[in-house]
């Protein structure tokens, strides 16, 4: 037992704990080295790279269309967005026009994917705080979304649906009706979620005023998406730098308001995600009502050779700005691809905010920041 407590000085004693890469609450293979004084943390140092698969190097040896399946694996919870970001980059580099129907389909599939991803996130937050049942209920809803997406493109997790210039498969009217049926069902689930867990006394107590991230910190560390909005920065790429079909759609952007504590605490990050579910449903409904007929893929040749140049393209994924930086040297293969993901920057802020938290709070912080291993490591 002599190894447990390390003598530092006269009064400084700290316990060094290794959390992960196999730990039930680290959502994949993340690792934290915790310096604690009993239950209270001095510092939590994240260690990543346990899922570094070299996606950026692989890009240099594949063709542009051949790289799209790899983009599914950038974040397996929201494969559509990575597909879309990469396709969008190549489209803007080589001036490919995307048909309107394809853009609508991208929005529908993307928002479905966002709901699926938020389901896992919200479930994981509650599960890490001890309530397992909401997670299982949300898994049940996710199964239905998986069914819908599978009917659309034949894959449950790694979709490979959005292609350069459009989408892979068309949706028939029956499918759209099924989606609408699902939405009717899911909107009731969101209300049930509010009744069941969101305002649960213990859950609020566990998350309110915990690990407050100020707006300045959030911008400085490059937090994006729901994490940024929870800190009170009103920014959504879908609304402020519109792409695809989003300018034609009407939706609200929920931001953190310090409903139960301070702006930017864990509860805000949690509740922003819950509110986004409803907006996603709204977007899908509008898309289903307005979707035009037409082609689903633009005029794309089999060999894509973008001109020399570079582009940074980003979409608003479930974890915020999911960007890709592509350098083309005029050949069939990209010269350099770099992914910019929300989880990477969210992970980097943990060391900064961890001081003085308790071990149980860290679990809440990891869960509400929605850090996921493939995005941090790529």
């Amino acid at each position, binding site marked *: 037992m002599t190894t447990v407590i390390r003598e530092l000085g006269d009064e400084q004693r700290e316990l060094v704990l290794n959390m992960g890469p196999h730990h039930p609450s680290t959502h994949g293979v993340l690792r934290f080295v915790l310096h604690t004084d009993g239950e209270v943390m001095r510092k939590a140092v994240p260690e990543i790279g346990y899922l570094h698969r070299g996606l950026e190097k692989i890009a240099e040896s594949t063709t542009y269309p051949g790289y799209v399946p790899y983009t599914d694996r950038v974040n397996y919870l929201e494969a559509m967005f990575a597909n879309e970001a990469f396709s969008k980059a190549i489209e803007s580099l080589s001036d490919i026009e995307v048909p309107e129907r394809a853009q609508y389909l991208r929005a529908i599939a993307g928002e479905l994917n966002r709901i699926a991803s938020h389901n896992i996130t919200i479930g994981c937050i509650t599960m890490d705080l*001890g309530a397992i049942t909401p997670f299982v209920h949300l898994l*049940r809803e996710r199964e239905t979304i998986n069914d819908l997406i599978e*009917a*659309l493109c*034949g894959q449950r997790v790694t979709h490979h649906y959005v292609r350069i210039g459009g989408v892979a498969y068309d949706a*028939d009217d029956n499918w759209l009706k*099924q989606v609408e049926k699902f939405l009717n069902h899911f909107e009731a689930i969101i209300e049930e979620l509010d009744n069941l867990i969101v305002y649960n006394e213990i859950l609020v107590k566990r998350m309110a005023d915990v690990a407050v991230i100020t707006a300045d910190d959030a911008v400085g560390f490059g937090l994006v998406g729901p994490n940024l909005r929870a800190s009170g920065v009103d920014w959504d790429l879908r609304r402020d730098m519109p792409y695809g079909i989003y300018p034609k759609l009407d939706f609200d952007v929920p931001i953190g308001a310090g409903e139960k504590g301070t702006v930017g605490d864990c509860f805000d990050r949690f509740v922003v995600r819950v509110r986004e579910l409803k907006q996603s449903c709204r977007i899908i409904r509008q898309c289903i009502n307005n979707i035009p007929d037409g082609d689903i893929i633009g005029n794309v040749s089999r060999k894509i050779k973008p001109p020399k140049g570079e582009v940074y393209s980003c979409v608003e994924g479930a974890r915020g700005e999911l960007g890709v930086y592509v350098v083309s040297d005029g050949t069939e293969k990209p010269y350099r691809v770099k992914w910019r993901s929300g989880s990477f920057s969210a992970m980097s802020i943990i060391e900064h905010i961890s001081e003085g938290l308790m071990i149980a709070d860290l*679990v809440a912080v990891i869960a509400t920041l929605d850090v996921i291993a493939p995005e941090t490591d790529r």
Partner: protein
Amino acid sequence: MNALADFIINSLGLSGLSAELVMLLLVVAVAAAVFGIGMTISGLLTLAERRVAGRIQSRIGPNRVGPFGLLQWLVDGLKLIMKEDVVPHDADPHMFRMAPYLVVVGVFAAFASLPFGQLLIASDLNVGILYLLAITSLVTVGVLMSGWASNNKWSMIGGIRAAAQIVSYEIPTALSVASIILISGTLSMQGIINEQGGWPWQWYIFYNPFTFAVFFLYFTAALAEGNRIPFDLPEAESELVSGYNTEYSGMRFAGFFLAEFANIYLMSAIATTLFFGGWQIPGVTPEQQAGSLVLQITGMVVFMSKSAVGCFVVIWIRWTLPRLRIDQLMSLCYKYLIPLSFVCLGGNAIYLLIFPKPSSANTLVHMITTLFGGVLIVIFVTRVMYHHRISGVSLDLNFLARGEKGKYNPETQVRAYGSFRKKYEKKQGAK
């Protein structure tokens, strides 16, 4: 028990054997029986937990071994016995091995003074409830020992949390038990039950408003002592991997596992004894019950069903609520539960000063409290039903694949490769 030994010697014609030997054999037999009953109850509870959790989470739960999966717990136990018994290299081997025994002994020894029926009690100690409080404290020692001896930091944190938590929550538990002792005037478990009656207004929970509050204090504190959600910090899965039993495998882990569930039963059984009239059957006096075998068995069934309801509530809470943080847990105990228990204790004492003997005024208080409790239960049930109704969520997992009337309809079934199918059909049509 001596009388029983004599009875056996006389009736079976074993006069050759010494009374001491028969006594010893009898003690061993009773101990084995109590242990067996405890094991069976906790094993069945593990299964019940999994099945109830399944229902709550719209799953099914284990149903493959035996009818309705009833033998699942046996199978699990058998497997755990066969697993390798790992003792980590850096662990303290003796303490590591001893810890589960302490926990098991602490919990199962308590079964000795549980009154399952009017005559079905292994030993009706005259200090019964004190014995229960004392013997279950062995669990703390065992848990702390296991956490320390594992030489794993997560285990150690779990062990320390357990020690802090269980020791703190002993106080409100003991104080709420003291309120009941004050009223009953006896420490014997059977004595406490005999003081109550079969009808709800004769139970101690509805004795007066203070005992009604005491029940909730006792229940909360007992939940914390049993390490159940929302107080399951010592083995908080998402924080401490598996807490104090992280390094345990095989049989030793089975010991911890069974002890945890035996503890749930124990707390429900104690609650049944103290607050819900134990084995008392409505309308039947203890004297009548003593004379009839049928009534005896009915009494046992009554006790078991009351404690089963208690176990169900514990499991229900486990799968509903999130868990507290350690500082919130401690402040709940020291800032709220302990002062409130003192208030209730004082309130009960004053109440007894005012109504020292059973009187019609006394009965009126019982009735009013019962009415109040009944109204609370009705409100709770209506609320649950209301939320169940307004949620309007179909629990059908595959509702997309079904037609409008809820019947299976292959036409609307979602299929993989929907557009491939369309193309295929077009091709077929062209041919």
